């Protein structure tokens, strides 16, 4: 009964991951992240993704503030922020977010405010979607490890 729970949860996780890969939300870099997780660093993926969320939301706020200001003109600075976002998204395998950053960067290089605004909306949407899916994944993982923990009682 509990055994089935663990297996079913693992199947759910794999299915979710497969969908995310298929949709291009994640790429094989995310698998690299998972491979770096082991007993010596059992929460590695969660830790990295948590840092990513924190950094990303900071950057999104800056970008939103910049573009809310009609007088804004420092597109070079914006390009630097976008490069950071692009780099970190690439590092965790967030493919779709990364691709929107590329388009956004092109618009900012052209000082195209309208283009930037559209890209920002798309970026916020993709980021939101990614965050929700990753949280779903982490919840499944947590449930799975709890279920597995019950099956093998902890030793004190």
């Amino acid at each position, binding site marked *: 009964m509990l055994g089935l729970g663990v297996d079913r949860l693992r199947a759910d996780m794999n299915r979710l991951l497969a969908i995310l890969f298929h949709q291009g939300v994640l790429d094989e870099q995310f698998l690299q992240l998972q491979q770096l997780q082991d007993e010596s660093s059992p929460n590695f993926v969660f830790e990295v993704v948590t*840092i990513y969320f924190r*950094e990303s939301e900071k950057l999104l706020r800056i970008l939103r503030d910049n573009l809310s200001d009609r007088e804004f003109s420092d597109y070079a600075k914006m390009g630097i922020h976008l490069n950071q976002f692009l*780099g970190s998204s690439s590092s965790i395998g967030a493919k779709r977010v990364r691709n929107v950053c590329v388009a956004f960067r092109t618009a900012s290089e052209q000082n195209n405010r309208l283009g930037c605004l559209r890209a920002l909306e798309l970026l916020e949407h993709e980021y939101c979607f990614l965050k929700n899916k990753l949280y779903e994944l982490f919840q499944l993982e947590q449930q799975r490890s709890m279920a597995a923990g019950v099956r093998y009682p902890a030793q004190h």
Partner: protein
Amino acid sequence: MGMAAEAQFHVLAVDDSVIDRKMIERLLKVSSYQVTTVDSGSKALEFLGLMGDVHGNPTIQSASVSSHLHHHQEVEVNLIITDYCMPGMTGYDLLKKIKESSSLKDIPVVIMSSENVPSRINRCLEDGAEEFFLKPVRLSDVNRLKPHLLKSKFKAQQQQQHLEQQLPQQRELEQQEPDQPQQKQQQQQEKEEEEMESIEQKVDEQEQAVQSSVKRKIVEESLSPERTRPRYSGLTMAS
């Protein structure tokens, strides 16, 4: 944790991105390297500049540098891996500074970049970088560091041996060190076990003293052994 085994290599990783620092640190640790990470070229130079000489003169630890080293240990960096795009000093600037330094020029330098710009890559390789990794860096990239590390360590050992011939006493002391960490750990564990036993004894004695007092009945009702005895299961031993 600071007493490195003889075979361990020490890599200095430089990257202004928090995420990439965490990634490269993990990649290097998984490959059994000792890692120090810094977030800028200037901090890297600071760290390298305070290495002291081969005799291991004391170094100052900067608060913003994450490190696993004791003050008295010889600081030796076997390889530097740095991001290219960083504010202030770029990875290329750092490479130049290292290659221009008489004390640091033999340390192999590897450059990482998220951008595939052939002219940039060629320039770095021509000016002394051993390798150029495209980000995101993978384990297969990190595996390519081994030969560069071996070459660097061999060179450092040769230098060490040359100086050892001049200082026989110091070498004898150093050779005893690899065994000491094990013994020290065991001794410390035994000591802590003894301390806990004596604390438990004292608690038992106190309980007995309380029970034999005039207010025995009240004490028996309100005090249970579980509450007076401190919990030891949550404590961790020295690791």
